[in-house]
């Protein structure tokens, strides 16, 4: 639709009503994954490999099964054979086959009448391993002599001659890169590294599964996408997806890590062997960190050419990313297009390889790939700005993408808001605050594509004139509120009269998960169109009552009205009146819309951070932090601000402290929150936000997804601020105190 069609002057959209799930969550009434129980339910525990790479010689469960109260043990031998592709990868990760591929890889599972008994039984399952050589580092995995951990893993894209751990290769670009570098006044090239980090959701994975003797199963699970859980679990277990019904719980965070399966099918496999009794499996934090998908680790070469006036003449990247022991999991396909997405540069070359290593199967993490790419490219842009004495925002305004710019990955941008975020950041008071001793300021921009995807939504008009909306995207960041506001606006009824429910797989057509910043965009768009369908029917009912043509009725302010004087003189018929009579006027009134939603608006943001570094300890304190991001239209501004702040907090953690630490033995050294250091409230100041609104023409209310871009700029912004404070540039995250202190000491010689 054209930009002019975007509505303005809303009554409900853009307001900040109380969240519909708020009371349930603060009173403990909300039910999360681990809160669900059934009569006769068993509890499960998982046996995990202590080795990074080992052949499984023998599994002996006799001692465990001899315990009174132990009802079932499953190993890979209980799962079907013959799977291929990603289905086989999912099965291999659910239960190891011939080999354990990483520290924490599940090898067997047991169900018993209590949680403690299940854990005791798991300890009695004896697994004989033949330990194999391992590799966990991305560069080491490509080095000559590195053990090839899964021979034949390379797909069609990998040219001959690459290391056996390379699973995927990608290259694209445009323009004459060498000519671009020749035209530059300075050309700089560095290597940047980021470690794997975990999504760090508060709620561990949890599921209850029950498999009936008739081959039909049911699962209650904490997930971002229950249709994905259904399809993947069915594939792993060799059952028809239609025979599995999945109901999502409330969700305590996901950030991409709950868009796939890790242990969920085990509940069904154990239930089947235990005579159909329901089985609950709740992961510990240690299991979450060891065996659920963190993001990839990355090693990235970047080369840029810049003129003295700040014009970027050419750019080149070569990314190496590992996403664990399974192919297809590192986000090279996203990281490369994101690398220069904020810029309009005449000559670019992108190249990347995906490498497998003895680490857990990576999963999506908030704008997968974009934060790493931004760390590499935005750090080098900042280094060159400092060398040439240029303002980093002015350089980004000069080179930044605009409406009509050809993107770095090919297509032309339609309506985007990067320039507006840069102008707003430049004008913000934070950018003018004088800095003191040992203080520095960092600036970076970030990008995410956003996503639409498969979406199905239904809406029913109540007899009391309310509306109930059924969506299939679990509410992680406030989508029930934002969808409720859009439906209220469309129907012309109070927000309080709209109830939005997340429903199970049997109630709607297939929905993709809440991922890709899509829930408010895609489910919201479908809900608005479903409401439009209900409005059409309500106008038809009013027309029949008035004995006029349906086309002579219009809908406004929650009621049907005659459309002009020729339609006749009738008092408005409210949604409550129509609802109360619908049984006698043709039956229930509902609306439905299903679509693979397209028309997402690309998302851009710019962050400014001030830090102070203690020269004695290397500890970095965030003094102030500003997020400026384009929301298209902020449906519920408080939730939008929350997404901005949450993304920034996770990015700051990635920049300063978070990292997977593997020992020489290939085992994860820090699988608890005491040692895996995520930021807590006392680590951060209140994060300032500015919502820029450049409406997306592809949505009835101009929405752009806002969930992911916010995690992208903090990595380079914080590192650049530290460089400003100390003179030391950290090119390998995290900027932990020992690393910063060593860099400061190295500068002093």
């Amino acid at each position: 639709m054209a930009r002019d069609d975007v509505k303005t002057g809303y009554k409900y959209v853009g307001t900040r009503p109380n969240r519909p799930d708020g009371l349930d969550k603060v009173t403990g009434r909300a039910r999360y994954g681990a809160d669900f129980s059934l009569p006769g339910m068993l509890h499960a525990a998982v046996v995990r490999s202590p080795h990074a790479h080992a052949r499984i010689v023998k599994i002996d469960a006799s001692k465990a099964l001899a315990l009174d109260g132990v009802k079932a043990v499953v190993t890979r031998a209980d799962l079907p054979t013959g799977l291929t592709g990603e289905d086989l990868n999912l099965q291999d990760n659910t239960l190891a086959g011939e080999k354990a591929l990483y520290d924490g890889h599940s090898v067997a599972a047991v169900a018993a009448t209590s949680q403690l008994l299940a854990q005791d039984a798991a300890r009695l399952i004896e697994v004989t391993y033949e330990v194999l050589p391992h590799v966990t580092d991305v560069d080491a995995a490509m080095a000559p002599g590195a053990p090839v951990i899964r021979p034949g893993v390379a797909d069609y894209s990998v040219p001959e001659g690459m290391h056996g751990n390379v699973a995927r290769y990608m290259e694209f670009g445009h323009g004459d890169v060498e000519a671009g570098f020749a035209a530059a006044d300075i050309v700089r090239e560095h290597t940047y590294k980021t470690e794997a980090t975990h999504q760090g959701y508060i709620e561990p994975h949890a599921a209850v599964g029950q498999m009936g003797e008739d081959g039909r199963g049911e699962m209650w699970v904490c997930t971002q996408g229950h249709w994905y859980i259904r399809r993947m679990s069915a594939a792993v277990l060799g059952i028809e997806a239609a025979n599995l019904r999945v109901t999502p719980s409330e969700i305590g965070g996901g950030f991409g890590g709950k868009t796939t399966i890790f242990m969920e099918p085990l509940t069904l496999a154990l239930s089947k062997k235990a005579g159909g009794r329901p089985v609950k499996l709740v992961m510990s934090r240690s299991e979450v960190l060891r065996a659920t998908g963190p993001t990839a680790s990355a090693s990235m070469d970047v080369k840029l050419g810049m003129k003295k006036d700040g014009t970027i003449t050419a750019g080149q990247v070569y990314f190496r990313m590992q996403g664990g022991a399974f192919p297809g999991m590192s986000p090279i396909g996203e990281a490369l297009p994101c690398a220069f997405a904020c810029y309009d540069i005449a000559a670019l070359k992108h190249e990347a390889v995906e490498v497998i290593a003895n680490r857990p199967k990576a999963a999506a993490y908030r704008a997968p790939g974009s934060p790493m790419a931004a760390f590499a490219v935005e750090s080098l842009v900042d280094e060159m700005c400092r060398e040439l004495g240029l303002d980093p925002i002015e350089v980004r305004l000069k080179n930044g993408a605009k409406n009509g710019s050809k993107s770095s990955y090919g297509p032309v941008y339609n309506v985007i808001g990067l320039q507006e975020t840069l102008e707003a950041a430049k004008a913000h008071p934070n950018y003018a605050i004088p800095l003191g001793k040992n203080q520095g300021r960092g600036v970076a921009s970030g990008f995410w594509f956003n996503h639409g995807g498969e979406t199905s939504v239904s809406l029913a008009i109540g007899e009391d004139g309310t509306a109930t909306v059924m969506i299939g995207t679990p509410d992680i960041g406030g989508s029930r509120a934002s969808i409720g506001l859009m439906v209220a606006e469309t129907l012309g009824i109070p927000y309080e009269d709209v109830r939005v429910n997340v429903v199970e797989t049997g109630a709607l057509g297939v929905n993709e998960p809440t991922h890709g910043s899509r829930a408010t965009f895609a489910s919201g768009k479908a809900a608005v169109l479903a409401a439009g369908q209900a409005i059409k029917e309500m106008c038809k009912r009013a027309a029949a009552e008035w004995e006029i043509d349906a086309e002579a009725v219009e809908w406004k302010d929650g009621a049907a009205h005659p459309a002009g004087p020729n339609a006749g003189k009738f008092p408005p018929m409210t949604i409550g009146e129509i609802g109360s009579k619908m049984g006698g006027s043709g039956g229930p009134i509902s609306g439905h819309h299903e679509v693979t939603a397209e028309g997402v608006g690309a998302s851009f943001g710019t962050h400014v951070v001030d830090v102070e570094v203690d020269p004695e300890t290397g500890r970095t304190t965030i003094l102030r932090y500003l997020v400026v991001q384009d929301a298209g239209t902020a449906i519920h501004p408080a939730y939008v601000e929350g997404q901005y702040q949450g993304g920034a907090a996770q990015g700051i953690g990635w920049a300063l402290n978070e990292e997977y630490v593997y020992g020489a033995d290939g085992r994860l050294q820090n699988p608890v929150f005491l040692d895996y250091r995520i930021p807590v409230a006392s680590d951060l100041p209140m994060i300032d936000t500015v919502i820029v609104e450049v409406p997306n023409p592809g949505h009835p209310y101009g929405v752009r997804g806002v969930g992911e871009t916010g995690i992208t700029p903090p990595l380079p912004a914080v590192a650049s601020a530290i460089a400003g404070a100390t003179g030391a540039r950290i090119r390998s995250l995290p900027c932990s105190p020992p690393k910063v202190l060593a860099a400061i000491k190295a500068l002093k010689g």
Partner: protein
Amino acid sequence: MAKVHLWASLRRFADGQEVVEVDAATVGQMLDALEKAHPGLGPAIKAGLSVAVDGEVIANSRSAPVKPDSEVYLLQRLKGG
């Protein structure tokens, strides 16, 4: 005919061409025609692709229209967190 831009590492499966001209009315027809003309592109297409048609990113819709003068870019299938 629509002009389909291949990313660099796909070009070796299409006789080195950077741009392939395809006669198609939808994204699905375009992908089918590409695979028919250059079977080496089959694994990439089967692995899942997103496309951009005249600047609009189409993540996963085979029915999205393609015009005779459309400019199409193939992209890796986009995911999100």
